[in-house]
C-alpha cells in the first residue's frame, strides 16, 4: 500500500479545505452584515458548497487510472465511494440551507453561526466517508456529533429543542465512549489503526490463537454501538424520535438523510476494509447479528410510527425503518461471495440516492406546512389537496415513494435491496422487510388521507412562491425518474468499494 505524505495529500484534500475556509468566511461575514441581511450568509455558504463541489469533481478527475489515493499517510482515502458520499452529503447540506432560508422557526440573529456549523458538520461527514484509520474514524465521528448537538438545540426559545440537544449529547457521549473502547480493543489485538492492515492482521492473530472470536465479537459490538447510534439502528435508536421532533425541521431533515448516509459510509468502509476477510466475519457470525439488528430496526421503527400524530416524529420513526432497510444491504458484507458483497453495497448506494430525494422532499413539505399552517401535526395537513394542490401532489409522490409503490423511485430502491438480499439467500430478512413495507403503508396513508380525504375547517388556500415550487420539483422529478432510467443503476455499481 502506498501512502501520500502530508503535503502531497493537500491537493486531494481541497474539497475539505474549501469547506473550512468558507465556514470561517461565513462567521466573518456574519459579523459584518446586519441582522436582517442574514440571507447573504446563507448565499455565501451555498457558494462555498458550490466551490467544494467543483473541488470534488476536480480531485476525482485527477485521480486518474489508479482510482484511489491514500492521503495523509493512510489516514483517509479518496476513492469513488468517498466521492459519491461527498457529493450526496454536500447536496444534502445545500438542500438544508435552502430549507432553512424558507423556514420561519429559526432565529434570524443566530443564522450566521448556524450556516457555519452546517459547513463544519459537512466537513466532518466528508471525513467520515473517507476515514481509513481508527483514530480518524473516531475524530470524524466526534466532529459530526458535536456540531450536530448544537444544531439540534438551535431553537433557543423552544424547550423541546433544548431537550433534543440534551438527549442527543447524552446518548452520543455514551455511544462514542463505548465505540472508542471497541476501537481500542481492535488496536490492542492488531497493533495498528489502519483498516487495511487490520484486515490482514485479524485473521492471522485469530489463527495464532492470540485473540478469541469472543474478543472480536465484543470489540465489534462496542463499535457497532457508535455506528448504530449514527444510523439510528435498534437498540441505539432511542434518541432519534425526540431529537428529530425537537430540532428545527431543516436540521431534522439533515440528520435523517446526511447523518444517516455518513453513518452508512463509515459502516461500510469499516467492515469492508477492516473485516473484508469473510473468515473473520463468519467466525463471529456478524451476518446474523446484523440481520437481526436490521430486522428489529425496521420493525420497531415502523410499529412505533403507527400511532404518531406529529408528522415530524412520524417521519423520524419512518427514517429509523428506512435505516433498517438500508442495513439489509450491510448484512451482505458478511457474505462469502465478493460479488454479492458488492451488490449489497451498490444497493445501499442506490437506495441512499432515492432516499435522499424522497425523504428530503417530504421534509421540505413539512417545512412549508409548518410555515403556513403553523403546525407539524397531521391535522395541519387536512384538506391540503384543495388548499395547495401542487404541494399535496408532491407530498403524495414522496409518500408513495417512501411506501415503495411503482413507478416511484422508492420502489426501485427497495427492489434493488431486496434482490440483493434474496440473492444472499436471506429470504426471511427480505420477507420481514416486505411485510414492513405493508405496515408502513398504514401510517404514510394517514397523511395521504388527511390531505385528500378530509377537509380543513379553514379552507383558505396557501400561496407559495415560484422558488418554492422550483425547489420542490428538484425533489419530485428525481423521485419520479430515478428508478426508470438504467443509468442510475449502473452508476450505483460504479461507486462501490474496491
Amino acid at each position, binding site marked *: 500500500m502506498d501512502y501520500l505524505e502530508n503535503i502531497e495529500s493537500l491537493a486531494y484534500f481541497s474539497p475539505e479545505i474549501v469547506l473550512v475556509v468558507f465556514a470561517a468566511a461565513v462567521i466573518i461575514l456574519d459579523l459584518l452584515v446586519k441582522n436582517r441581511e442574514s440571507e447573504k450568509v446563507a448565499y455565501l455558504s451555498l457558494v462555498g458548497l458550490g466551490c467544494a463541489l467543483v473541488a470534488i469533481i476536480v480531485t476525482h478527475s485527477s485521480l486518474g487510472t489508479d482510482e484511489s489515493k491514500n492521503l495523509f499517510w493512510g489516514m483517509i482515502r479518496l476513492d469513488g465511494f468517498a466521492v459519491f458520499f461527498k457529493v450526496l452529503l454536500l447536496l444534502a447540506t445545500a438542500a438544508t440551507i435552502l430549507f432553512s432560508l424558507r423556514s420561519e422557526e429559526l432565529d434570524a440573529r443566530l443564522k450566521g453561526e448556524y450556516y457555519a456549523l452546517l459547513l463544519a458538520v459537512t466537513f466532518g461527514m466528508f471525513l467520515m466517508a473517507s476515514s481509513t484509520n481508527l483514530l480518524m474514524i473516531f475524530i470524524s465521528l466526534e466532529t459530526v456529533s458535536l456540531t450536530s448537538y448544537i444544531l439540534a438545540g438551535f431553537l433557543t426559545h423552544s424547550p423541546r429543542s433544548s431537550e433534543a440537544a440534551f438527549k442527543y449529547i447524552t446518548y452520543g457521549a455514551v455511544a462514542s465512549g463505548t465505540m472508542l473502547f471497541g476501537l481500542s480493543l481492535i488496536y490492542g489485538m492488531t497493533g495498528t489503526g489502519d483498516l487495511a492492515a487490520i484486515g490482514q492482521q485479524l485473521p492471522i492473530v485469530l489463527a495464532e490463537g492470540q485473540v478469541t472470536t469472543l474478543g472480536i465479537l465484543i470489540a465489534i459490538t462496542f463499535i457497532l454501538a457508535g455506528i448504530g447510534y449514527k444510523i439510528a439502528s435498534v437498540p441505539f435508536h432511542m434518541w432519534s424520535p425526540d431529537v428529530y421532533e425537537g430540532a428545527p425541521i431543516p436540521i431534522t431533515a439533515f440528520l435523517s438523510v446526511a447523518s444517516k448516509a455518513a453513518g452508512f459510509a463509515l459502516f461500510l468502509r469499516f467492515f469492508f476494509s477492516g473485516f473484508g476477510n469473510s473468515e473473520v466475519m463468519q467466525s463471529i457470525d456478524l451476518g446474523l447479528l446484523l440481520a437481526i439488528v436490521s430486522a428489529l430496526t425496521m420493525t420497531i421503527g415502523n410499529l412505533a410510527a403507527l400511532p404518531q400524530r406529529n408528522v415530524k416524529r412520524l417521519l423520524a420513526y419512518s427514517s429509523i425503518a428506512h435505516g433498517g432497510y438500508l442495513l439489509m444491504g450491510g448484512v451482505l458484507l458478511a457474505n462469502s461471495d465478493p460479488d454479492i458483497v458488492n451488490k449489497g453495497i451498490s444497493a445501499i448506494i442506490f437506495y441512499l440516492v432515492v432516499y435522499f430525494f424522497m425523504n428530503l422532499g417530504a421534509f421540505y413539505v413539512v417545512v412549508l406546512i409548518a410555515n403556513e399552517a403553523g403546525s407539524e401535526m397531521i391535522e395541519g395537513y387536512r384538506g391540503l389537496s384543495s388548499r395547495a394542490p401542487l404541494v399535496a401532489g408532491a407530498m403524495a409522490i414522496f409518500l408513495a415513494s417512501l411506501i415503495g409503490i411503482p413507478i416511484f423511485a422508492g420502489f426501485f430502491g427497495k*427492489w434493488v435491496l431486496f*434482490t440483493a438480499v*434474496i*440473492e444472499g439467500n436471506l429470504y426471511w430478512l*427480505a*420477507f420481514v422487510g416486505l411485510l414492513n413495507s405493508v405496515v408502513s403503508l*398504514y401510517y404514510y*396513508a394517514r397523511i395521504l*388521507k388527511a390531505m385528500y380525504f378530509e377537509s380543513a375547517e379553514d379552507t383558505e388556500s396557501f400561496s407559495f412562491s415560484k422558488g418554492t415550487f422550483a425547489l420542490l420539483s428538484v425533489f419530485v422529478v428525481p423521485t419520479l425518474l430515478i428508478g426508470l432510467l438504467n443509468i442510475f*443503476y449502473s452508476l450505483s455499481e460504479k461507486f462501490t468499494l474496491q
Partner: protein
Amino acid sequence: MLLSLMIFVPLLGMIVVLLLPRESEELIKRVTLLFTLIPLVLAVVLFISYDRSTAGTQYFVSVPWIETFNINYHIGIDGLSVTLILLTALLGPICVLASWRNIEKGIKAYMALFLLLETGMLGFFAALDLFLFFVFFELTLLPMYFLIGVWGGPRREYAAIKFFLYTLFGSVLMLVAMIAVYLNSGVPGERTFDIPTLITLAGTEGHALADPGFQIWVFLGFFIGFAVKVPIFPFHTWLPDAHVEAPTAISVILAGVLLKMGTYGLVRINMAMFPEGIDFFTNGVGFWGNSLALLGFINIVYGSFCALAQTDFKKLVAYSSIGHMGFVILGLAARNETGVTGAILQMFNHGVISAMLFLLVGVLYDRAHHREINGFGGLGNRMPIYTGITTLAFMASLGLPGLSGFVGEALSLLGAFAKFQVLTILSTIGIVVGAAYFLWTLQRVFLGQLNPKYEDLPEINGREILTLVPLGVLTIVLGIWPHFAIEMFSESVTKLTEIMGTLQASL
C-alpha cells in the same frame, strides 16, 4: 407500436386533463371520453386483426429498459390478453359516461386518476416481462385508493385503506416469488424476466426453475398475490367494503377488470410458468391435490349464500361477484381444455355482466339515494325500461341458457366434473342460490306495490342506456354465439393445456 399507443394514450390523456383549467368541467369530461375512446378503437382494431390461427404472441415490442437487471419493455398480446384488453377498453368510456353527472367534486383529479388507472390495466394485460407486469399491476393501486377514498361513500376511508393494505400484502409476497424466479433463471448476467423465456426454462428438465419444490412455493407466492385480487376466500373481505363505498364507475372497473387481473395472473403466470406447482395443487396426492378446486367451491357457495343474506343491493352484487369468480377458479383447477376455456370465458362474461349490474345499481342509487332492497317495490311500473335491462342482467348473471353467463359457467363445471365430481356437484348449489337471490331481488325491487315515495322516480335516461346497451348486446351475442370469443383464445388454451399436459403424461 399500435399496442404501446393504446396503453399510453390514457396516460397522455391524464397529462392533458391535468393541464386543463379546473373550472371547465364539461371540457375535462369530453377530453377524458375522447382519450378512452381512442384505446377502444385501437383495441377493436387489435381484436379484429388478431390472427386467430396461432397461439403465439402478436404485436410484440421488446425494448431494453433497465439493462442492469435485464428488464425489457416487452409487450405483446395473445388471444387471452386481447380479449381482456377489449373488455378493459370497452369499460373505459362506459365508466366515463357513468361518471358524467354523479361526480360532484374534483372532476379533474377524478378523470386524471381514472386515465392513469386505465393505462395500468391495459399495460398489465399486455406485459410480457415479469417486472413490467408487476409494475403495471401495482400501478393500479394508488389511483384506485384515491378513487375510492376521495369519491366514495360514507365509509370510504376504511374501504380504501383496506383495499390498499390487502392488495399490497398480496403483492409483496408476489415480489419475493418474482425475485426468486429471476435469480434462479440463470447465472448472473443471463438472468431474465422475460415471461415466454421463463415459461420455456421452467419446462426444461434439470433447470433450477423446473424443480418441483421450488415451483410449489413460488406458485404459492404468486397465488396469494393474485388470490387477494380475485378475490379468493379467505382473502375476499376487502371486496364488499370496496364495492359498497366506491362510486359506481369505480365499482364497474373493480368488478369488470381488476378482479380479472387476478385470474389473468393465475393463468398467465401460475399455470403457464409453474406446471409442477399447479400440478401439486390440482393433481397432487390427498388434500393438496383438491385444494384449488376446493377454494373455487368455497367461493361459489360461500359467495352465493352471503349474497342471499344481503339487503344492500350493491353488496349483493359484490358478493355475487365472489361467487361467480369461484367458477373461474374451479374451471382453472380442472386444467383441461373445456374447463380452462370455460374459466376464461367466464372471466370475460363476468366482466360484462357485473359491470352491467353495478351500472344498474348506480342508476337506482342516483335517483333514490339509497340501495336498500327492501325499501323499493313495484318499480316495474314506474321504470319499465330500467326493469327490462335489469332483468336481462339478472338472467345473464344467474346463468340462464341463451345468455352469456350460462356458457362460461357450464363449461367450467363440465371441465371440472371430469376431475372433481363431488366438488362440482356441490358447486351447483351456488347456481341454485344465485337464481334465488336474483329472483328474490327482482321481486322485492320491481314487483308488488310501488312505494309511494318513488312515484316520481324518473326513468333511466339516454346516457345511462348508452352505457348499458353495448354490454347488454354482448351478453346476448356471447350467449348465442360464444364461439365469437372462444375462437380468440382457443389456440392459447390448447397451448396452455399442452404445457400442463405434457407434465401429466410424463408422470
